[in-house]
């Protein structure tokens, strides 16, 4: 059971990294990865929203969705939107400095498709509450790792001399492609076990 949980974590975090393998959460991945510090903090906020969403999704799956399957998408998105609203209020109350640093990217967590995908896969894989939590933490950490790596690479790239034509999104895409190629190496973890 314990090793099972470990595999769920490693799979969500590294092997099937949400951003670099499933292309989820690309908007913040390209939008917020300009500075290392902001990237890391946004990653932490995303992990938190994922954990809460996973709990709520388990609850919805157990009590509401068996009676009304067509409400799945609508109820998930409402849960995510209200969690983000809640996180926003808490952060503003507890740490106004962090609130100012995150700025517009805090409300934008709602439209991060990684979170909705997490809720949906958790449902289709029929994970238990604990497994769901581990899955959420793993996926969130994977997203944070990708975001921080990307931010570090972009800060380096800014300092080097690059032809003007490739600067901006085109360069970021190609960097992401190389990162994604590196993460494919983690697939070996599973065949070795």
């Amino acid at each position, binding site marked *: 059971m314990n090793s099972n949980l470990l595999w769920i974590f490693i799979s969500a975090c590294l092997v099937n990294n949400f951003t670099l393998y499933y*292309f989820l959460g690309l908007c913040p991945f390209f939008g917020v990865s300009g500075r290392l510090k902001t990237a890391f903090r946004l990653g932490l906020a995303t992990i938190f929203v994922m954990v809460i969403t996973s709990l709520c999704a388990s609850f919805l799956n157990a009590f509401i969705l068996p009676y009304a399957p067509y409400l799945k998408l609508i109820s998930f998105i*409402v849960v995510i939107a209200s969690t983000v609203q809640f996180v926003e209020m808490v952060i503003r109350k507890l740490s106004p400095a962090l609130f100012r640093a995150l700025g517009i990217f805090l409300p934008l967590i*709602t439209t991060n498709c990684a979170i909705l995908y997490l809720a949906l896969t958790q449902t289709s894989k029929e994970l238990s509450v604990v497994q769901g939590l581990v899955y959420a933490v793993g996926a969130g950490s994977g997203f944070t790792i990708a975001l921080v790596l990307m931010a570090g690479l972009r800060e380096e790239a800014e300092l080097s001399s690059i032809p003007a034509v490739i600067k901006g999104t085109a360069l970021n895409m190609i960097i992401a492609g190389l990162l994604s190629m590196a993460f494919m190496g983690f697939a070996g973890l599973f065949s070795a076990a």
Partner: protein
Amino acid sequence: MAESRDADINAQRLYAEFVKGIWKENPVFVMVLGMCPMMAVTNSAINAIAMGVSTAFVLIGSSLLVSLLRNLIPREVRISTYIIIIATFVTVVDFTLQAMVPAIHKELGAFISLIVVNCLILGRQEAFASRHPTRLALADAAGMALGFAFALLCLGATREILGSGSLFGRSLFGEHYEPWVIMILPPGGFIMLGLILLFFNWMRQRKTMRPAIAAEEVRR
């Protein structure tokens, strides 16, 4: 932005709103919106088309509804209202695809549901449909949807040709072609889109440089 009156709308205006989404303000190549579904489903041309059609339906449907209701939706809860309208249309698409073409539905998987959080759709509601009359909103939505589908098809077809040596499942080069497998895997998506964006940048740069080069030649 002042809301244009219904009387001002003529065929020319409608056409302009329709055409801008396809090329000049192409949602993917120029505005870089809606990336997630864009790359996840474009490992073959047929998937790209299925995604394009589903997104078009959701975009046009929700633009129509949002623009009809634009004077009734309170400003404070507008984003939540848009999301719920979009989620409703996505549920319709999800169930329809599941019933009519189960194979494609299985292939696209959760990405049909993820149309809900496609920033292109929410963006068009916020920026256009909520402040323009219905006919203009429809023209805009149709143009944007067509532009998105065009971009999907570009990426999907290129990746399928390079990655499996076929187009729409039909083999192109015969059995001696060694497929470039990385292109249908995730890194290929990033790199291919990077190259396409690079091409667009290059074209734009050439266009802006042309007058400067011409002036240089005149001086000589």
